[in-house]
């Protein structure tokens, strides 16, 4: 992989992307040049034919063999060229996507949220596509166009240098036109990608929120949002179009002027006997040859402009520093956790303030507190999904980033509050990798009380569930999430309001199962229900980012008025809880 300039002010040129594919690109250009070189010979053969006829020694056989031979070779070379072209461009696209995905996979959670998934989607699709287009079309076209332009120019010069110079005067004129127009276009392309991000976002929200939209009948509103983005896209498209609509006619006109010069000046030369009629014909043919590549470069500059804009955007992702810290501790966790002075800021807003917590190995701790108290963020901190702004979090006396990531995550299981189900089989959703053993999987399924549910499915564990898990009930999803966390045989299990969607009886069973099947587990559970955690070793009451009380249930009932208030709010049905 080529090393990329990390200086964003000076992005590497789009051509640098070709470096690792030198061999293929050289081969590609070689075939293109061979094909085009031979193509240049064709008018010469014809001119020779005409001239030899006027001189009376015309030979059909020679002409036909020469011409047919050249034609056949052109065909072979062009065909080889297109094959390599496809192969190279697709490989560049594939490798670029792989590099992007590898890079993204090293991102931290915060990076992804900041980078915005909708934009990353554009990076991986539309942006890569425009670079692919650059490789598949621009590279060859420009190489062979330049070759034809240079070749045709040399041939023109060798026939009649005065006339040739007049004709070639069009090249700088065209060059300058391109330069001016493209400079404007490039800025517009960059903007148009941003609008595509916007469109993606509107579409994506309208899809993810489709149920809500139908419940409140707000389809029209969504349409208006979309319309706004789409109008922008159209306006921008039209301004890009306007620039190109002007560019191409100017170039054609300039080229036509060259044709005119040949007629007027070349005609004069022929009349005055300084040029042969065959050469005059060849001049016309070469001009026709010259115009096409110039036009091609014009079109390709469009492609290059788009690809450069895309490459710049992709470069920003590729050049972003990786979030992974190379910790190397591979020790087995005991589950002893220490938080010292942990503060977390979101922008200016403190989410957690100066938290001190001590969790003993193998103990059970509950975190309760009102909505938006920072409970989920506390769990995110414990998994290293986010990093504290201040303070330290230590497992067995070492900070999270001192641990080797794989080793750490293998020992920490996390059940998220909202259900995240992938469009894969239930087995993959739970095992989430091929390394989980069947025994661990079985144990996790049994513990999460999923056995009966899975047995009743037509294809059992291999049943594929849909994206967003819409074919499953809320409780089923939550239990699959639990099984997923347990399947890694964790030493520390973090539950984020896990039982909110599971009925009480099942909840009891599951909590019992966990204790039974994973006896050494350190359990940290964010919950709303005091009844379920009364027996825990430690209960922490979190309010607005601060620990307002902590201790065992009995102590808190005596010391914390807030805790008693929460307890009382749950007491009206307490008798039913006790029955079970």
């Amino acid at each position, binding site marked *: 992989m080529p090393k990329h300039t990390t200086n964003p002010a000076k992005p590497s040129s789009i051509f640098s992307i070709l470096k690792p594919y030198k061999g293929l690109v050289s081969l590609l250009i070689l075939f293109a040049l061979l094909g085009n070189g031979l193509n240049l010979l064709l008018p010469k053969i014809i001119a020779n034919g005409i001239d030899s006829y006027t001189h009376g020694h015309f030979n059909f056989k020679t002409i036909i063999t020469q011409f047919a031979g050249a034609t056949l070779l052109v065909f072979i070379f062009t065909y080889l060229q297109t094959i390599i072209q496809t192969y190279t461009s697709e490989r560049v696209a594939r490798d670029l996507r792989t590099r992007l995905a590898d890079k993204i996979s090293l991102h931290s959670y915060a990076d992804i949220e900041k980078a915005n998934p909708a934009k990353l*989607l554009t990076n991986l699709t539309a942006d890569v*596509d425009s670079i692919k287009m650059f490789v598949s079309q621009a590279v060859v076209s420009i190489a062979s166009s330049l070759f034809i332009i240079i070749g045709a120019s040399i041939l023109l010069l060798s026939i009649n240098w005065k006339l040739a110079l007049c004709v070639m005067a069009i090249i700088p004129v065209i060059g300058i036109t391109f330069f001016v127009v493209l400079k404007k276009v490039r800025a517009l392309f960059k903007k148009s990608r941003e609008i595509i991000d916007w469109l993606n976002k509107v579409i994506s929200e309208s899809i993810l929120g489709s149920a809500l939209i139908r419940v409140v009948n707000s389809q029209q509103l969504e349409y208006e949002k979309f319309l706004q983005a789409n109008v922008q896209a159209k306006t921008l498209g039209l301004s890009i179009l306007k620039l190109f609509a002007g560019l191409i006619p100017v170039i054609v006109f300039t080229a036509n002027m060259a044709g005119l010069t040949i007629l007027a000046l070349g005609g004069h030369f022929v009349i005055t006997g300084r040029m042969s009629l065959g050469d005059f014909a060849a001049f016309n043919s070469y001009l026709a040859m010259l115009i096409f590549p110039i036009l091609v470069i014009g079109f390709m500059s469009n492609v290059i402009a788009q690809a450069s804009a895309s490459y710049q955007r992709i470069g920003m992702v590729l050049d972003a520093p990786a979030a992974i810290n190379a910790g190397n501790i591979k020790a087995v966790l005991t589950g002893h956790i220490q938080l010292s002075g942990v503060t977390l800021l979101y922008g200016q807003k403190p989410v957690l303030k100066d938290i001190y917590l001590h969790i003993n190995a193998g103990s059970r701790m509950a975190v309760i507190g009102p909505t938006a108290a920072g409970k989920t963020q506390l769990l995110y901190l414990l998994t290293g999904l986010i990093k504290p702004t201040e303070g330290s979090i230590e497992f067995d006396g070492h900070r999270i980033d001192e641990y080797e990531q794989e080793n750490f995550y293998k020992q920490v299981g996390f059940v998220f509050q909202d259900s995240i189900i992938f*469009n894969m089989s239930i087995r993959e959703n739970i095992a989430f990798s091929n390394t989980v053993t069947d025994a661990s999987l079985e144990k996790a399924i049994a513990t999460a009380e999923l056995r009966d549910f899975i047995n009743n499915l037509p294809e059992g564990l291999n049943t594929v569930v849909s994206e967003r898990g819409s074919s499953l009930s809320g409780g089923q999803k939550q239990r699959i999430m639990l099984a997923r966390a347990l399947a890694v045989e964790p030493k520390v299990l973090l539950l984020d309001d896990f039982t909110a969607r599971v009925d009480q009886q099942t909840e009891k069973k599951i909590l019992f199962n966990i204790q039974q099947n994973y006896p050494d587990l350190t359990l940290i559970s964010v919950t709303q229900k005091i009844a379920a955690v009364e027996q825990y070793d430690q209960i922490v009451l979190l309010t607005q980012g601060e620990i307002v009380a902590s201790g065992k249930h009995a102590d808190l009932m005596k010391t914390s008025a807030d805790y008693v208030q929460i307890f009382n709010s749950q007491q009206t049905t307490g008798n039913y809880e006790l029955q079970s």
Partner: protein
Amino acid sequence: MNYNLNQLSAQQQKSSAYKAVKKLLQLIAHEKRNLLLAFIAIITNSLLQLLGPLLIGHAIDAYITTKQYRGVLITSGILLGMYLLALVTSYLQTKLMGSVGQRTLFTLRNTLFNKLQELPVAFFNQNKAGDLISRLNNDTDKINQFFSQSLMQFIGSIVTMLGAGIFLLIINVKLGAATLIPALLILFFTMIVSPWVKRKNAVNLKSIGGLSAEIQESLNNFRVIIAFNRRDYFRKRFHEANQHNYTTAIGAGMANNIFLPVYGLFSSMAQLVILTLGIYLIASHQFTIGLLVSYLAYATNFYNPLRQLASLWTSFQVAMAGWDRISQILSLESNLNPVPEQKKMAATSALLSFRDVSFAYPDGKEILHHINLNLEAGKTYALVGPTGGGKTTTASLIARLYDPTMGTVLLKGHDIRSYTATERTRKIGFIMQEPFLFTGTVKDNLLYGNEEYSGTDKVHLEQAIQETHLQKLLALFEHGLDTPVTSGESISLGQKQLIAFMRAVLRKPDILILDEATANIDTVTEQLLSEILNQLPATTTRVIIAHRLNTIENADEIYFVNSGNVIRAGSLDHAVSMLLQDNRTS
């Protein structure tokens, strides 16, 4: 009804093809004038380009060989005028055609998005978000590329070709006919190869959709990937999709690139024919050198656009494959449109009732069996039962997110299907298990889709919030109405549920369904919510689905939902004992 775009039946596909073409024509129908002007510009431009070589050929024969330089200069003057005219027409053709393309893309995306909005929830459950986004963006753009770039060149090339072909035949029939034979071969070749090319591209576009779906799914759930250290798994899954896309793209690329070399070969053959046959004709005094020079130019004028057509044809095939994917969406019809009431139902005093309702998802298993249910105005109903028992499905049927497979749901004594969406959604509020927020502020989300308060100023809105007793909940947000929120993870699930709750209450529905709507809200705040629910207008019916029993203790009636059956529980105690004893899972 099957809404899975990747598994549409042949019947659905077939009807879609016909409708699709009709739709496409409708999309550009209003552009008639612009299209006409563009055609005129294209044809003029092509003719001007054709006349050039003719004039030059004439100048060679008439003036250069006879050494009359004045004639050469006059011809040059005429040419200059023509080239200036061509400057204008070629600007116009790009401008006009490109604008049509851009506007068509615009209309197409709008139509598609609109269609997406018409389709029911079932459609979204059966298709992946990433694939849909790919269809809306990538596939429409393929059509745009064809319209704004290729179509113009396409027409221009065909006109130039036709003109050149006619000139070839006029100048010399025999030579012309011989010159055009390779073109005929090209035509055959194209006809044979095209379906294959289109198929290859369709496969590729599908894999692009798959890739996009994979990315979308992974990126939106990145937390899980990190927390379970499955970065490698993400990479592996992505590589699989990427590799698959690579394979299909190579297939499509190989197919797309077949045209160019073949077209090149045939056009060189044509030149050879002209040269040998032409010289033979000159030798037999049926032809002149000057004509041969312009003849070669016309042959170039004929075969160069043909070579261009090769790549244009490819882009046409790609666009058609994209269009197929788009029209798959356009061909779908919502099965939830209002339908006139079939037969008069027995009068009922209930606000909402289920009459022998059964329901099954398209993938088969029946979720609800023969449910009968009456909900009276102003009462509170609780649905309890084990997970997966059918509670959410029951609620979804009340909100008509789906229609029952059998039986009828009655709203105020009329088939719920006979109400328009506006009437229905005004009467029924539904707070769903998974709250969804749009990026914006709390205010944006509270008023989302609320006609009554759209455009209301802050004072009136705060008044409305007071009236519905929501002010205490709103106070939980740091900046009140102006607190920014996103559709992502920046806000806690409990807070999302609070906003969803306020949103539904502000709409003042006749029936308010809460499906685990407060599950992640702390019990103290939850008491606040029950107070608000108690203060709803006396006629409002509440349907509460919850696991936490304290949320349902005030219910007038409790239904126990399990294994697709809905049983009325005599009391809370009865419900609890059923919950504890009944161990059937569904």
